[in-house]
């Protein structure tokens, strides 16, 4: 009998399907159609991504409006050695991006070659996937703004 330590792979997987409701569902419908939507709050400011309730007043959100597809990096962190389950295989930047027309930033990846290409305040734009399903990954990532639509 061997005294070697036994090892075995152990995978825990939860294949959740969530219902979205009309606010998150509306936002995802927009993604599928390559359109960015924000939630209008009672004070007139716009949240993107939307929440179902205004975090300040707890009022339900009742209006989604189209916002821009480019914006400003408000903060970022370089992922130089992406782990297997991160959304990108190449090094990338996690970034908070405040899209034009929105008052809150959203988290996504900025696809640049190295950290020297990143800076707070830089302008970036959405790069859409060709095949979109109504999922946050319909946005392939953000790239430095060129002026051309993604």
């Amino acid at each position, binding site marked *: *009998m*061997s005294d070697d*330590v*036994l*090892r*075995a*792979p*152990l*995978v*825990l*997987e*939860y*294949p*959740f*399907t*969530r*219902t*979205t*409701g*009309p*606010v*998150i*569902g*509306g936002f*995802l*419908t*927009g993604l*599928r*159609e390559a*359109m960015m*939507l924000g939630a209008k709050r009672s004070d007139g400011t716009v949240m993107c991504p939307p929440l*179902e*309730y205004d975090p300040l*007043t*707890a*009022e*339900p*959100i*009742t*209006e*989604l*409006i*189209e916002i821009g597809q480019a914006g400003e990096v408000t903060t970022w962190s370089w992922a130089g050695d992406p782990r*297997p*389950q991160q959304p990108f295989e190449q090094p990338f930047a996690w970034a908070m991006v405040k899209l034009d027309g929105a008052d809150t930033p959203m988290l996504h990846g900025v696809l640049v070659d190295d950290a020297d290409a990143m800076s707070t305040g830089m302008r970036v734009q959405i790069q859409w996937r060709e095949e979109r399903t*109504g*999922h946050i990954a319909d946005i392939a990532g953000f790239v430095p703004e060129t002026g051309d639509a993604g």
Partner: protein
Amino acid sequence: MGYNQDPSVPPAALSGAVSIPDALADLEPVRSVTTPLRMEYTATPGASLSKYLRAMKEKRIIGDVCPDTGMVFVPPRGVSPVSGKRTTETVDVADEGYIESFNITRIPIKGRDDLHPPYVSAWVVPDGSNTGSIALVAGDDLDLDDVRIGMRVKAVWKPDDELEESAANILHWEPTGEPDAEVPDMMRIGRPTDGGAQ
């Protein structure tokens, strides 16, 4: 509205009264999204479970003996759950036993294409053990209506050349046709110290 809104009145977000740009209004809305969670570990079983898994490779089921009560716990954990004491003796239990409880599943589970409903999950107590564990009960001519508490079953092992250090060596348990076991009254942990029903 706000924090004091009547909980019996659905908020707009749930009633569907959310306006969206005209360009999207006539399209089929997204109603659900899949968000799988997956965690990959490398598991190391520890000393007691390693002994259990190595015994499995020899088609043996082993358990730990509680030094105070003599109760046998399968699989062995190195500590008796009734006395809290470290166990020092390991014994073989039988690869036959009885069904203490069971459930028939008729609905498929996503991601478990190896299970074909309807199938029987049972709590099987091997002879010589004071504890049971979850197991599949199957058999070529198994009549689901015939499955019952107390039914005698025996382990069906993988072919010898496919045995590994794994509890999956037992493919399932199948009825033996013997007279039913007399099932003792359930206790929260463990069964009578005479080794269970026979």
